[in-house]
């Protein structure tokens, strides 16, 4: 594998007088195995790499990328970024991140066994997962697919202001999508387990989850409409908290796109909710010692007992607000732009187990899957309306399965209506941890 820092330095070293250059480099290796009915449906193995270059001249920003680390292509991208900068508006706040003296956490996120485990063993894991899901319950008709995947990623950020950061991480996952039922009825369930190393994969966990989620939906009907408490399972709560955290990006706030603009110090969520973004916590699969501008990761408190404590900044938005970066720069790949945002968010776990939360809520709905997040949640107006599946809860006990209904409210209102936070913190690939979350006064639309 190439020396990313070295390549980055050779690009940045070409900065002319009055010019700043940033190079963002990635090198990635991936495996993806899909098994269907005891044979390999597809096996993908590949290496890829690329560079994103940002040039600032006279307070004007230009960017470019190349999907390779070949010398000639990098040179072409640099010239292109320079040319692009000529057309941008002058922005006095533009600039690169500068070293800020914050020490990066030491994180051990790379496991060699991802690269050394024979492909045959990875295939066997996906095969075994398919067998295991079927063996869990005779009502499992088939699996849409049973999958193994892994990635090994190295990244570097080098800039002409003195930044030179390097990150590396591996992770792998097993997932299955099960179909349960007879000819008359089909229900589906998704199960997954992820780990930094192949040895840490818990196949039984993924198999149980897929089988249970699919079979417990058998016989599901459309529920009656009404106002209810909903209990979000950890995966669903993770999606919900991810949307809430995205509105705390200083970029959204400064552009007048956040419902939380100008509300620092206000009670914006239930006192049960303490929300932190902590990419230095290695339990997150998104953990990294540095952000995508090369600044050290740090722990940022967003809500303390429901009170709005802070926003997430990269160096540009920090300069605009006369503050410092929170190490929250996120770059959407080599061709993406850099904005601040949540990198590793979690609600601090509460005292109650999921069972206690169910028992206390009494009459409610347990939500196991949602759909239409991108079409039904507007983080600017806060309107929230998504499709849902789950289990009706009566007297604190799981009762009949329900599907084809929507749950709707408003993002701000839902945060204030949180009535319980579970103690079951779970980490899966993605930037937000999950835990059971109970929310009052949600509209259920069914029959």
């Amino acid at each position: 594998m190439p020396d990313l820092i070295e390549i980055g330095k050779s690009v940045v070293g070409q900065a002319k007088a009055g010019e700043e250059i940033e190079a963002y480099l990635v090198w990635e290796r991936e495996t993806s195995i899909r098994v269907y009915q005891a044979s390999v449906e597809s096996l993908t193995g590949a290496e890829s790499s690329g560079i994103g270059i940002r040039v600032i001249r006279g307070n004007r920003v230009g960017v470019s990328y190349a999907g390779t680390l070949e010398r000639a292509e990098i040179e072409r991208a640099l010239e292109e970024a320079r040319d692009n900068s000529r057309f941008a508006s002058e922005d006095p706040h533009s600039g690169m991140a500068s070293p800020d003296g914050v020490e990066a956490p030491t994180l051990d996120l790379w496991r060699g066994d991802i690269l050394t485990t024979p492909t045959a063993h990875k295939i066997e894991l996906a095969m075994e997962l398919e067998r295991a899901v079927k063996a869990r319950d005779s009502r499992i008709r088939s699996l849409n697919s049973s999958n193994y995947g892994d990635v090994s990623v190295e990244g570097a950020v080098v800039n002409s202001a003195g930044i030179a950061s390097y990150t590396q991480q591996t992770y792998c996952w097993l997932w299955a999508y099960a179909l349960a039922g007879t000819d008359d009825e089909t229900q589906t369930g998704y199960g997954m387990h992820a780990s930094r190393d192949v040895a840490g994969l818990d196949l039984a966990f993924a198999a149980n989850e897929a089988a249970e989620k699919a079979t417990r939906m058998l016989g599901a009907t459309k529920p009656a409409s009404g106002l209810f408490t909903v209990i979000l399972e950890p995966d669903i709560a993770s999606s919900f908290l991810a949307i809430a955290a995205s509105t705390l990006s200083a970029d959204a706030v400064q552009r007048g796109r956040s419902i939380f603009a100008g509300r620092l110090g206000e009670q914006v969520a239930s006192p049960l909710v303490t929300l932190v973004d902590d990419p230095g916590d290695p339990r997150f699969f998104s953990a990294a010692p540095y952000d995508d501008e090369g600044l050290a990761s740090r722990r940022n408190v967003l809500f303390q007992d429901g009170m709005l404590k802070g926003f997430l900044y990269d160096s540009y938005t920090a300069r605009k607000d006369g503050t410092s970066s929170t190490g929250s720069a996120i770059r959407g790949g080599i061709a993406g732009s850099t904005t601040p945002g949540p990198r590793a968010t979690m609600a601090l776990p509460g005292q109650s187990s999921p069972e206690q939360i169910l028992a206390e809520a009494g009459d409610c709905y347990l939500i196991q899957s949602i759909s239409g997040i991108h079409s039904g949640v507007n983080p600017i107006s806060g309107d929230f309306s998504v499709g849902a599946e789950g289990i009706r809860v009566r007297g604190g006990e799981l009762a009949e399965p329900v599907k084809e209904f929507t749950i709707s409210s408003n993002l701000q209102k839902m945060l204030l209506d949180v009535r319980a936070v579970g103690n079951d913190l779970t980490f899966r690939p993605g930037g937000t941890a999950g835990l059971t979350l109970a929310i009052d006064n949600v509209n259920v639309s069914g029959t």
Partner: protein
Amino acid sequence: MTLLDETVVQKALGRALARGGDFAEIFVEEKATFSASLEDSLVEELASGTSRGAGIRVRFGDTTGFAHTADLSEAGLNRAIEAASSLARGSTSRAAQVAVTPRIFVPLAHEKAIPGSVAKDRKIELLRRLDAAGRGQGAAIRQVNAGYSDSLRRFLVANSDGVFVEEEQVRTRLSISCIALGDTGMQTGYETAAMTMGFELFDDIDVDELAARAAIRAIQKLSARPTPSGPMPVVLAGQGGGVLFHEACGHGLEADHILKASSVYAGRVGETVASPLVTLVDDGTVTNQWGTYSHDDEGNPAARNVLIENGVLSDYMWDSTQGSRERRASSGNGRRQSYAHLPMVRMTNTYLMPGSQSPDEIIADTEHGIYVAKLGGGQVNTATGDFVFGMTEAYLIENGQITAPLRDANLIGNGPEVLANIDAVADDFAIIPGTCGKDGQSVPVGCGQPTVRITKVTVGGTAGA
């Protein structure tokens, strides 16, 4: 200029099948993109770049080996071939010698307006016009975000069945998002224009009107009331986008879901699956639409495929992998996001054919319900048929009249049930551009329909019905 020499292609295919396998394919792609955005009336960073690489696919029985590389040298291709064919080792080779037919080359239709030949400041000028026109709709408009992007994608696909196709595709897109602020908080309005063509797109598009539509939508929604909750009649405007059909039956008619019996439409060809008013077509040949191409990413020609005719299911959509399992031809629906992705069955431009009623007639004939003027995105579970789609501009219908604007919400239904509940189809029609995601891959598609009425679908608002 060819992406890869014919002799290199032949050699690569031969090598890919040297140790066994039924089918080998090489897909070489070069894609150049450009984008620019404007916010706070400032032109933000312009971004451009190129990616180039090859994907190698080797199939033996029902197994596909796949590898991709950005290194198009002989050594780079050989490494990818080695990886893609590793599982085929020891199986019987169908074709060790590969002959390809004379190549088919489809050049761009509009060479003058390809992205690289248009000055960057002309593209930026469009953003400034959008900004001015959006803000011109009133002081309530507090924020305008405008985006321009274009891409030039060239690919070469050749396989051991003798296909050798080279194609160029150029796409251009302009979008605007307006934020209005009022006593009730913030509301957004969004519009986009996107076609498979070059900068000549703007010969036909009224940029000022596009901006005005987005701005007016945001302002009108400031007075929107909570959307009702529960099942009710819904009229979907012909200009609003056909995402309902994309979700309610489009995905469920993709052959990969059918062959795994993970679609509610599996095994139902020849059966009535929708109201007799429903004739659904997937058509990759509609001139310049967002989901249009000459050849799909497996080298098969795009086609017009009738999926449902007068309510009866006539056929599914196929790529070559699923087609080979059923010993039938691809329907030209094999697509991939890039050379680094495996092709699979995807929609192109999917639309409902117009009927005979006028849109006004349908609204006047609806006593109580919802009128959806603009649809958002959607999602479906093909195995259960349950799907959602969003509405981003909607109104109440009271006594046959369109009345109060409503807040954004999702609607939920079950594919076959909703299709059976379509009781009116108008004579208007429009196709709207969109991005379709499946298994982590995004491709451009078109969704179209005339104005239609569904007698009953569940609306996910926060107010009582």
